[in-house]
């Protein structure tokens, strides 16, 4: 395919009526964050993120663009290093959450019965429990925390909302005409589930995924800010934890905690916009009113 053809395809997608402003804005922001997190570590000297790399408590200057923290680490270095692990945790939590949610939601919504009742009661009960409570208990008992482990811990409480959303959709879809036709054609129920219902669920799955990633990152940063995060690599949340520990806020060292907060805000803003845009994609009847 020629460059011209690729550009034309991109332009066609970008100008389609479903590609609303929130979706574009969210995607652009997320792209910036991804570039920062994936390319950034290669551009910045990673040695600078280690303890004692530079003199401690230096304000931003031409030598250290974001200054240093109380342990002598370059803020720019560990912020750039820490963005990708944060996103990774969110992706793991979101992925596992959606995986479980899809499985449970499809089966519960389509086949109903006792299984459906059990799933519903379980999900509703777990939703009422404050996340931080369970997460703190689990995380406090884990000796060596890694990215994957933290993602899984957060995912434990991330599956409920996707399950409910997907189940609700499946409930309405199973009564549709095309499902009846497929059944009348002799397709087995399992085939109907995967061939007819699942493909139409994709917009909802995408919207739920973004929501789950957002909730996962929020929970992960919360745990990290309490000191229950990664023991090895820095992440944005642990940067906040160390800043608290060394009283950087009251001490006026704004350059330590401002970059992590700004990046976190940008991540959440982009996820929010993406989710709003995907919601509208999935449900075009939600009109927009400024």
């Amino acid at each position: 395919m020629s460059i011209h053809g690729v550009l034309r395809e991109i332009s066609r997608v970008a100008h389609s009526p479903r590609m609303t402003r929130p979706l574009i804005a969210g995607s652009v922001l997320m792209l910036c964050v991804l570039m920062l997190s994936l390319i950034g570590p290669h551009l910045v000297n990673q040695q600078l993120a280690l303890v004692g790399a530079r003199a401690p408590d230096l304000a931003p200057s031409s030598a250290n663009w974001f200054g240093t923290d109380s342990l002598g680490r370059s803020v720019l270095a560990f912020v750039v290093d820490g963005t990708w692990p944060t996103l990774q945790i969110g992706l793991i939590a979101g992925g596992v959450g959606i995986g479980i949610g899809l499985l449970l939601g499809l089966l519960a919504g389509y086949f109903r019965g006792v299984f459906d009742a059990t799933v519903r009661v379980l999900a509703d009960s777990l939703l009422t429990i404050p996340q931080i409570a369970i997460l703190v208990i689990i995380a406090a008992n884990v000796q060596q925390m890694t990215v994957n482990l933290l993602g899984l811990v957060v995912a434990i409480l991330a599956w409920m909302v996707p399950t409910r959303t997907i189940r609700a959709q499946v409930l309405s879809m199973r009564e549709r005409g095309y499902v009846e036709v497929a059944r009348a054609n002799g397709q087995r129920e399992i085939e109907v589930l995967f061939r007819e219902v699942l493909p139409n669920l994709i917009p909802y799955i995408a919207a739920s995924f973004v929501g789950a990633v957002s909730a996962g990152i929020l929970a992960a940063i919360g745990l990290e800010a309490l000191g229950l995060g990664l023991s090895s690599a820095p992440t944005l949340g642990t940067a906040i934890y160390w800043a608290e520990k060394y009283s950087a806020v009251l001490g006026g060292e704004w350059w330590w905690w401002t970059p992590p907060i700004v990046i976190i805000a940008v991540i959440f803003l982009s996820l929010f916009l993406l989710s709003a845009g995907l919601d509208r994609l999935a449900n075009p009847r939600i009109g927009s009113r400024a």
Partner: protein
Amino acid sequence: MLPLSYLIKRTSQLVLVIFIAVTVNFMLPRFLPGNPVEISLQQKIAISGTYTVNPAIIAKQYMGEFGLNKPVLVQYYTYWKSILHGNFGVSLANYPTPVASMIKAALPWTLGLLLVSAIIAFLLGSLLGGLLGWPRAPRALRLLAPGLMGVSVIPYYLLAIILIFVFSTHWQLLPGSQGYDPTQMLGFNWASVVDILRHSILPGLSIVLGGVGFWALSMRGMMISVQGEDYITFADAKGLHPRRIFFWYGMRNALLPQVTQLAVALGVVVSGAVLVEVIFNYPGLGYLLFNAVEGKDYFVIQGIVLMLIVSIAVALYIVDLIYPLLDPRISYRRK
């Protein structure tokens, strides 16, 4: 009145949640590797440097005292019995302070901060959202909306950091830490009240600013759909004053689904508030939890977590009981 089937269903759900919470609370530390007492003792020895005691022997004694070497089912039964008697064990870090008394001291602070800020955020957000969805609302409000939404994207505790820096370090207007002045002796006098209020402004503000955007956005959605209803048109045709229509016809009906949203949002608000307390060193349950996690004080952690889960479950139960009284249609509809 409340249909009996609804009451039974909701009460059994409450019992189930409490049962799951207590069981998970009981099981987790026992099924994860490591003996918490021994680890805690070893940490203390490492910090203090002396080694006159053998942690293994002390740990065994401790386990015998607290019945930790009996079969699991017996332990489970004794656990339930002690929970129902309000005995959550003793703190390992502040031996022998009972966990229950630590929680009792911290609870009023958290309740006060959380309840007031959450209610303010809910009311303010709903009002703002309602106005945003109402076509005849003042135009100036639309300008306020994106700012507030943007702020609410940032998690509460990060907002707290920014607020502390601006109002406490930079402008030195409001106290940025603790619940009351360390030099102040608390009593039932005016000075204490003012002191406590001053210290609660910034933490409360973080929770309010962080939560308003969410409530406003969902309220706006409700208001837009309520607006298209026939009774609004009818009220307008009757010639009622616009403000009256807004409050008594519009807001009143749009508020109902918001209250159900409260159920899901409560868990998130509590989680955020816990971290806000940590940032502010506010002497509530969140701060207690943080210190317990740092010091690996397992019984305190378990006690607080259990307390949080049970209180939220009870709060939601009350909300679910009140809701049919607010919306009589629920009683007729089958869930």
